[in-house]
């Protein structure tokens, strides 16, 4: 796969379809939707790619989306609300005792959420198991997507999954949101850490390019979505 890397816009001039939901969730009027690194990837996935709806959250042959990078799930919750998986009213109350929405998502509490994450480096290994389970049960059309952050790749557990998935030619698509937040960076590029994977590096704000990249079924496939560099380190 070969997409030319587009210049990354530092601001998003157009009104984002999820802007009102994000504001409702964060109460934050100052930051544009571009503050949410995963927003456009998630929107493209749920709007254009994934065969899943509130009615099919338990269908055995549904597509699976696993948010491995459980940090900063505001965009995820906004997309789930926009697509009717959860009521919009849930967005007004994040992280309280009575809210199903935590600062990291819990699959047991939130319809449509496939895995509970927060500790980094767990989603890809589980995703490998999900893809294997779908294959073993004869659901060749069901796709598995796992979204990670570039800093999350620091965790060694990812590299167990990366090596095994390519060794067995597993149908699975990993998406790495690259906002250059890894403390020591990835000299040589992120795709180089996924040997044997069919990779595409695209502008993580360009929804047309994202859709083209995510449409491709690879075994396994990597989409690196580059967005604005994160300011400030640590977590």
């Amino acid at each position, binding site marked *: 796969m070969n997409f030319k890397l587009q210049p990354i816009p530092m601001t998003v001039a157009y009104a984002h379809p999820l802007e009102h939901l994000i504001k409702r969730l964060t109460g934050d009027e100052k930051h544009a939707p571009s503050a949410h690194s995963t927003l456009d990837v998630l929107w493209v996935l749920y709007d254009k790619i994934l065969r899943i709806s509130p009615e099919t959250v338990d269908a*055995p042959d549904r597509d699976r989306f696993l948010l491995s990078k459980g940090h900063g799930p505001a965009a995820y919750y906004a997309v789930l609300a926009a697509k009717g998986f959860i009521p919009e009213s849930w967005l007004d109350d994040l992280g309280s005792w009575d809210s199903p929405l935590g600062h990291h998502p*819990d*699959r*047991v509490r939130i319809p449509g959420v*496939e*895995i*509970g994450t927060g*500790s980094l480096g*767990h989603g*890809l*290994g*589980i*995703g*490998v*198991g*999900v*893809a*294997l*389970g*779908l*294959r*073993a*049960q004869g659901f060749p059309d069901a796709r598995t997507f796992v979204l990670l952050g570039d800093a999350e790749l620091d965790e*060694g*557990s990812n590299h*167990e*999954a990366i*090596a*095994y998935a390519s*060794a067995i030619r597993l149908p699975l698509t990993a998406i790495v949101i690259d906002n250059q937040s890894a403390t020591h960076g990835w000299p040589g590029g992120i795709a180089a850490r996924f040997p044997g994977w069919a990779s595409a590096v695209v502008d993580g704000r360009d929804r047309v390019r994202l859709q083209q990249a995510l449409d491709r079924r690879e075994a396994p496939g990597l989409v690196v979505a580059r967005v604005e560099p994160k300011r400030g380190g640590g977590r």
Partner: protein
Amino acid sequence: MRDTFVKTTTELLDDDPRTALVLADISADAFGPAMRRHPDRVLNVGIREQLMIGVAGGLALTGMRPYVHSYAPFVVDRAYEQIKLDLGHQDAGAVLVSIGASYDGSAEGYTHQSPGDVALLDTLECWTVHVPGHRDEVGPMLRDAARHDDRVYIRLTVQENEIPHIGGPTLQVIRRGGPLVVAVGPMLDPVVEATRGMDVTVAYTNAPRPLDAEGLRLLAGGEVVMVEPYLAGTSARQVSEALSGVPHRALHLGVGHHEIRRYGSWQDHAKAHGLDAAGIKAKIQKFLD
């Protein structure tokens, strides 16, 4: 016990399309025939134990029943956070089957020993733990685990009792008498030998989690001795909770926390930890005197 595990799990794979097996190289050769027959369900991920548990969690989330196998220190100690999050936190189940136990790998050294596996699982929610004392006890445990989706740990070892004791999750009375001595799994034969001539009740369990609290209350008088093949005191909380309304004294025998740093046989290690018949006898006599 490992041979029984391979045979029974191979049969389960043949009989039930829901069954999957996840390996990290250990015992891969023994499962060769099963792997050739069921390449989509017998998965050897290589020497990658974190992935082994993650894969099991993912398989379970799609409705399969994963069996996971390696040496106890690799399947439990090394992958503890995966067990906590990729299984427990996802509300997913798996059947973990370990070999090696506390010191089967006596000549291999501490890297291949896991005296703390059951204690680690005790920090987590809803784990059923089986500690078979004889190879014939292993098959029913594996088959029962295929019928539900709960989290199950089966701890295999080379140390065996002379005869099997197949029963349910309740304490089985081996001998009736005075104070209660509970032997877990392969501790039964040494306990029976150690208590010969003593006025004690000997009870057996190969299902220490959940511990049979009601049986413990019925059988224990004012004194109870637990003899376990993993860290000494692992069941102290369970015994204390079961007997919380009853004045009692308790003695907890098991593997010591100190590292032996010697090789030899498992019998040498049992002796070093005071878990041979002579060691058990001396400690119980002192406790009851």
